[in-house]
């Protein structure tokens, strides 16, 4: 299971925490991803980006997890965004009005 790419793991708050699950966020993976995220966000970074590279599918729990990350960031005043989302995921986000809460960037076409 890929771990979130946090750089660097130290007591000093990171400027940018880039969480990169690298796999689908579904029932079987979300709990582990949640724990990784919690660990990565200690101490709180100054900005959090969820990089969805390699994520092709998100189920109900996956969406709940993403919203949980957002809520934690929001509470600590940390800017949060989602990047590299494939079109189907962007569609789901849009249909749920999620881009109103935080920015959701689609995968660049040339990649």
């Amino acid at each position, binding site marked *: 299971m890929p771990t979130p790419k946090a750089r660097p793991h130290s007591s000093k708050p990171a400027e940018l925490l880039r969480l990169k699950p690298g796999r689908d966020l579904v029932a079987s993976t979300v709990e582990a991803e949640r724990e990784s995220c919690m660990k990565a966000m200690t101490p709180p970074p100054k900005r959090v980006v969820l990089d969805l590279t390699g994520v092709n599918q998100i189920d109900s729990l996956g*969406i*709940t997890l993403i919203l*949980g990350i957002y809520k*934690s960031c929001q*509470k600590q005043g940390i800017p949060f965004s989602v990047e590299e989302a494939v079109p*189907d995921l962007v569609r789901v986000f849009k249909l749920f*009005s*999620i881009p109103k809460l935080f920015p959701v960037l689609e995968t660049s076409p040339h990649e």
Partner: protein
Amino acid sequence: MSSLVDESIISDFVAESREHLNTIEPDLLAMEQSGSKAGQEVLNRVFRAIHSIKGGAGFLAFERLKHLSHTMENVLMLIRDGKLEADPGVMDALLASLDRLRAMLDDIHDSDQVPCEKEMEQLRVVLEERGHAVGGKVSVQTRPEDPLSRCFDMDEEALKSAVTRGMHLYHATAYLHRDIKDKGMSPLGFLNNAMGVGNCLDAFIDIAAVAELDHCLEQDLAVALLFATVLERDLAVIALKLPEEQVVPLDMGAMKEKLGLVKAAPAVVPAPEAPPPPPPQPVEEIPPQESGKNAPKESTGQETLRVRVDLLTGLMNQVGELVLGRNQLLRALSGHTRDIPGLSAILQNINQVTSELQERIMQTRMQPIGTVFNRFPRIIRDMSRALGKQIEIQIMGAGVELDKSIVELLTDPLTHIIRNSADHAIEDPEERLKKGKPPAGQIVLHAYHQGGQVNIAISDDGRGIDPKRVLQKAIAKGLVTESKAQDLTDREIVNLIFAPGFSTAETVSEISGRGVGMDVVRTNTEKLGGRVEVESELGMGTTVLLRLPLTLAIIPSMIVGVSRQRFAIPQVNIVEFVWIRSAEVMTRIERIHGAQVLRLRDKLLPLIRLADALDIPRTFEDPDTQESRPDRRASIADRRSPTREERSERRLDGRNDYSVVVLRLGPHQFGVIVDELFDIEEIVVKPLSSFISDCKCFSGATILGDGRAIMILDPGGIASLANLHFSDIQEEEKRRKEMERQEAALRASRTRSIILFKVSEEERFAVPQEHVKRLERIHPGAIERVGDREYWKYLGEPLPLLRLDRLMEVSPIPQGRNELYLIIPKASAEGGAQAGIIISDILDALDVDVDLRPVDIQGPGLLGSAMVHDRLTIFLDPLQLVAASGDAS
């Protein structure tokens, strides 16, 4: 992408919610006063109103507003279920929450920042402590929060398209775990499925419910969807694979209205946890307060539409111009109706349609005064509790309608007066009891029509205003000089409280019991074209009277002419027209205390010349030269100098006739002499320019059908300008009536009912009817004689007869009469002798008003003599005559 939740929808929601609040408050007060007798319908009305506010707030995502109204709804449910008494404690919580809702509505965009913890705590205490204490379990808060009550952003065109294609709109809720994951679907799969049977116009997740990372996965988040489909609800439920209660249909009528007209009320999503109250049942209902009667009623199915006020104002102005155009058209074409076939009918139709249109448009702007009055029971209730006083408010005439702009501007002055009455005028219960008054003070708010105006009287039975102290303060403040103060009546002094600068908090409230800023009351009232007066009786109470115009738009008026100028007098101010012929001038016009008065039936009316009041040079048309010449008559009773030829018939000269318009001014009437009376026209009232707004004799201006601009007369201003003293005339009227009454009494005392008769052709006699028992016709042959005495058989007994010529020096009855008459007097109280007086003829029975003079002849029973029917008549007392005849015998 455009948002439907724009400012107009929010402002509609605010306006609608305020209307609800205005109906809730009097209903809550009625519930508090009447307890369970208030009736289920009153409770249901409150319930429905709160429910609507909650639904709208939820739809528009005003969270605090929604939560507070939701909690209020829970309290109301307890009351409805009989688990909670609507006592003052409960009402305090509800009313305080109502105020908080109002504050949130006042600042709707920051309503989530308006603190409402205190009110929520009050309601919580009521729910948890009182609710349990009274009736057992509290189930109302066990329902989950409504996740649906949020706003949707969507493409307006897509929504329009869905609605116009006859699709149904549903507000669907899907839970991510329960309804999607557990059924083996992904969110995308769920949405794709939904899109297969309709359009998902918008959807969002209930973000407020999302927990932080550490607990987020334990939650089952709700997704709200605005879903359009051709499917009926039962099929939509199956297609969406959702439980039935999670698919709520939206009000398509409201949605269509919203889309078609933009200015529509927000669609209210029915919240599942608080079902609307049951339909009204035939239950006993207390008679609602007058204020409640006029509260906006429940919808009866009639469609309503919110329209901007400026649009109505524009329509009103335009219909005013239309009326003007109609008047001009009618005048211009009235002479051609015979030349053009059908023109008459066309003009009649235009006339009628214009009048109806004008009336309808005016109605759209009319509002019952109750919309303002309804706030006062609450103010009085709260002030009573805060001040420890007992105050009752009575509202009368809440249904009286006024133009919307007037109603709105009345709120402040009325609130001011009412608060002052409660705070300063009404005494403490102990003080009232000492004064012999009931412990509860009364404030009466009464609106009524009078003379084309609406009067609003605010009366209290409190301390009243002390004119001496008001005068002292007015002099101290330099508002009136000491010399002028001597000429002021008590009423004028009391009205000084309206003078600018008179009122300050510590002085006026101590002096008069009328508080701060009564000058503001006057200013605001005058801005509306109204007047304010105050009458007070020390120790008994005070009445503040606001006189307001009904509308400022179009009024029927009489057009009158004076010295070739024309003026309009509003028809509502006119009582009647009186034509005084020149021959009657001297008898009908009098002078009292230097003022001229018209005697009209049993009344004396002050009489003025309009020309004099307006300082217009009076003229008359010379009959010889047709020239306009100055009229120099000082007194109304003076007649125009006639030409030499006419001098002998001056009293009959028609040019000396007067046309008098009798005007109504409050309880008084007065006459105004005008030169000409024209016609009644519907005039469009134009406000006076600020340059002449101080001319109190004019209330506005208008343009006549012939294009001429004329002034509209204000009867109050004219009376004031002419310095009319109604009290002097009333005093004189009273004095005259008293004199007439005394004269009538005197006449009655002198009036005698007599029987006029004769015994020969020489003399006439009369006896008072009251002394006569019977008159009998007898035949001389029936008289029996015993010596000199004569008898007649009367009731089986011999009745002695007497002849006047044997008792006094009068002529005897001529011989040879075939019939004679007997006057049988009533027996005296002492039961003296009975006898009949023989006479020759009965002439009359009549009432006479005579002074009896002594008679020259000698004899008994002579009362005196007087002229009756131009003949000297001797008045006799028959009782004395009979007694004398008895003595003689």
